[in-house]
């Protein structure tokens, strides 16, 4: 995207834009989501092990 004036550059920057978009949507966001949920679960698990004890009524 450094130079949008050249035709050739335009083609490859379009490709690059699509690649980036799809990469983020198909890989980065899902991986992050799973990591966040998993991390949350892991933290809760560790809390259960060391602080809270096993899950009780409703939580």
């Amino acid at each position, binding site marked *: *995207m450094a130079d*949008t004036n050249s035709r050739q550059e335009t083609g490859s*920057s*379009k490709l*690059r*834009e*699509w690649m*980036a*978009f799809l*990469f*983020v*949507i*198909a890989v980065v*966001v*899902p991986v992050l*989501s*799973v990591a966040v*949920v*998993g991390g*949350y*679960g*892991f933290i*809760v*698990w560790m809390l*259960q092990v060391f602080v809270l*004890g*096993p*899950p*009780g*009524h*409703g*939580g």
Partner: protein
Amino acid sequence: MKIISTLWNTLKRPPVHISLGVIIIVSFIAGVIFWGGFNTAMEVTNTEKFCVSCHEMEDNVYQELQETVHWSNRSGVRAICSDCHVPHEWTAKIARKMQASKEVWGAIFGTINTPEKFEGKRLELAQHEWARFDANGSQECRNCHDYDSMDWELMSDKARRFMKPAAERDQSCLNCHKGIAHHLPEEMNKGGNPLLADLLNDATSVSANKDTPYYSAESVDLYRDAELTELVGHLTIATEVAVLETQGGSVKLEIPGWRKEKGFGRVFYEDFGQNITNAVLDKDAAQDESLVATRERKEDDLTGLPWAKVTAELWAKKGAYLKGRDALWDTASEIYHDGCSVCHSEPDPEHFDANTWPAMFSGMVGFTNMDGPTQSLVLKYLQKHSSDYVDDGQNVDDGQAAER
């Protein structure tokens, strides 16, 4: 590095080639697909097929489940692994899924990959589950079962007697229903037989002298004759006897006891007024004065019943008697602790008196897997260490105190 910086440079700017509409629509669709996939993954990992895809689960707990009511019943409702083991509440569920990473670790490194290793770990694993059920009041069971929907009239008498008070206290199901889906850990299954067998083993090597007291290491059949042909009754375990005579494989025993002077007097008790059974004779033998001699008579003020101190002289097999009762009491104490501390901490023996214990004990013993002989030993142990006997010097130092 180059790729990442290019990517970052591309992402930093507003898009030039992709319209906002396309971005929104594609993102939305991707979100839907992701959400669906996430939930599908959660569901797949909740299926029984997934759970038993490890042979550790398939070979052990899965096979055991198939013998139980939750596998096939008249209502045709199946409980699968996740019904009982995975919380429904979202956070707890996610935490449980992450916890499974430990199980994956175990599967990779084979911590329980043989039946022996599994049995070795089972108590620990079961205790984790019990702690969990304890904390949530057996929530998973109650997703299907509900105290409020139970019709006491339809329940068996035994079930009603226990379940109704449990419902009033909103008690956790697993307080009483351990082992509902899988075999109990081996440690809890020892009904005491191997321990009793050890005692009996010791007893076979004890040679009987006259004049010293002996104690039966098992329930022994009693005969009128030295050839052991005419059976007249039996001696209960841990009963004091004296050996009068030895003839081949038989010994002539002198059995002291008290009995009620009412009816046939078939049951001998260890002490005046105490329902601690020593021996049971059949009707004819109990009335036969050549076998049973009366020494003393006394009336029980409490019940008004006349009691008599008696001794019987009868034949029995050799090699079933020990010199003291300590080994018997130690064994009994261990079995009592193991069997009766499963649901509540076991009451001290001296919590009840000797005549209260039999009813207490028989109401509870069905929850344990003690067999007949073990039951009578443990009951006698409890009675002899009950409030009627604690002040009696002989019982003070018998290991029971040291255990606490």
